[in-house]
């Protein structure tokens, strides 16, 4: 084993990651605030009214970032899970477990905002639009992952089982997305799409990008917070946890 690899493993040990994550969290919150405020300013005070959808289109400034994050987090989660399966590192499983609720929240927000956009635009809270339907199935996949991990008592087994499920999910997501799209065109589903309709002005794009960055930073911050709790829960019996300042007090 090369020297560099050992360093990597040291960094990936829960013991050294716990304080590191603690130091990183405030920075990610600060970035979330900066990008969030800039993004909200652009999306509410700079971006002009849309010719077709009026002010209603402003929902895309959170709908699109939430959808992006829900998919991206699943990929990251599966990557951590696969890493854990391949290298047997303890931290990987914890990271995957910490990311899942945030990913589920993003999928839920995407569905919620999609429904609130759909009511005035399509006249219905729910339309079997290809994107919304795929998002719904993605939400189910997250719930399945969380439920499976919650049902297994042994954390090591939970990690491995979750990892296999996440990897199976990753293979399936493109297939599901493609099949839903195919099904949607066959049934002539909703023709007005939430993301395509506004003639994308430069400012709108920037607003969306900034909001996506804010969501991204938020996800990292909150996942790090959760992983810190998970690390302590799982390493309760180790010496380093007993020697933590916060525990000694």
């Amino acid at each position, binding site marked *: 084993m090369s020297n560099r690899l050992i360093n990597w493993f040291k960094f990936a040990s829960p013991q050294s990651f716990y304080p590191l994550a603690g130091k990183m969290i405030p920075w990610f919150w600060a970035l979330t605030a900066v990008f969030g405020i800039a993004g909200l300013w652009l999306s509410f005070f700079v971006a002009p009214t849309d010719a077709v959808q009026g002010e209603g289109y402003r929902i895309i400034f959170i709908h699109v970032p939430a959808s992006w994050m829900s998919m991206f987090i699943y990929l990251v989660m599966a990557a951590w899970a696969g890493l854990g399966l391949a290298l047997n590192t303890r931290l990987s499983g914890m990271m995957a477990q910490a990311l899942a609720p945030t990913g589920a929240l993003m999928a839920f927000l995407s569905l919620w905002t999609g429904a609130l956009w759909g009511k005035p635009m399509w006249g219905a809270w729910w339309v079997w639009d290809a994107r919304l339907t795929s998002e719904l199935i993605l939400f189910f996949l997250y719930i399945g992952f969380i439920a*499976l991990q919650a049902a297994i008592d042994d954390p090591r087994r939970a990690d491995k*089982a979750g990892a*296999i499920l996440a990897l199976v999910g990753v293979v399936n997501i493109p297939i*599901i997305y493609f099949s839903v799209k*195919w099904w949607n065109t066959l049934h002539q589903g909703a023709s007005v799409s939430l993301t395509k309709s506004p003639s994308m002005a430069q400012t709108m794009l920037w607003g969306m990008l900034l909001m996506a960055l804010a969501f991204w930073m938020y996800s990292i911050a909150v996942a790090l917070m959760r992983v810190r709790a998970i690390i302590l829960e799982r390493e309760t019996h180790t010496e380093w946890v007993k020697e933590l300042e916060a525990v000694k007090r």
Partner: protein
Amino acid sequence: MSALLAIVRRDLLLAMRRKSEMLTALFFFIIVVSLFPLGIGPEPVLLRKIAPGVLWVAALLATMLSLNRLFAADHADGTLEQLALSPTPLGLLVTGKIAAHWLTSGLPLVLLAPVLGVQFDLDASALGILVGALLLGTPLLSLIGAIGAALTLGVRGGGVLLSLLVLPLYVPALIFGAGAVEAHISGLGASGHLSLLAALLALAVFFAPWATTAALRVAME
């Protein structure tokens, strides 16, 4: 290869000794399908339209019923450990078990489908497509379901959890399977749907036993 045949033969023999379990799932399929006209009404046009979807959803649910037992019995009496410790690769034995599952739970659905399709006023050519789609699709259900069955092996509330894990993964099979019949009825031709189903099946035959084996090893640790 002889070991693969041996496990298929063993599981078929066990299924024959416990016919009631197999028949329960089959009758569940028949009853669910027969309930739909009672709930929706007997107009032939409407029934023809919902037939593929109803038959497919009922097939998914009937498969779920039998999936629970795919590995659970072997796990409980310790024979699964013996399979894992046999000189034959576990992946091969798992493939055999999945094949036996299809023969005992998938194939009977395929054979029954035309009879039930008649209840929904489907014509002969549509029935042919239905059988073809189920023939390609039900092995897919067994393969994907096996992963879920292995993951939830010995887990609290495994049965409900299994449906939660597996049903979302069944979406493509449902869409292409039911879509094939619909496309045929509406005159679009079912070949596209059927070839996509076949492609999915090829992919699943390659990956699913492997993932199932990995999940079983995790469950036995």
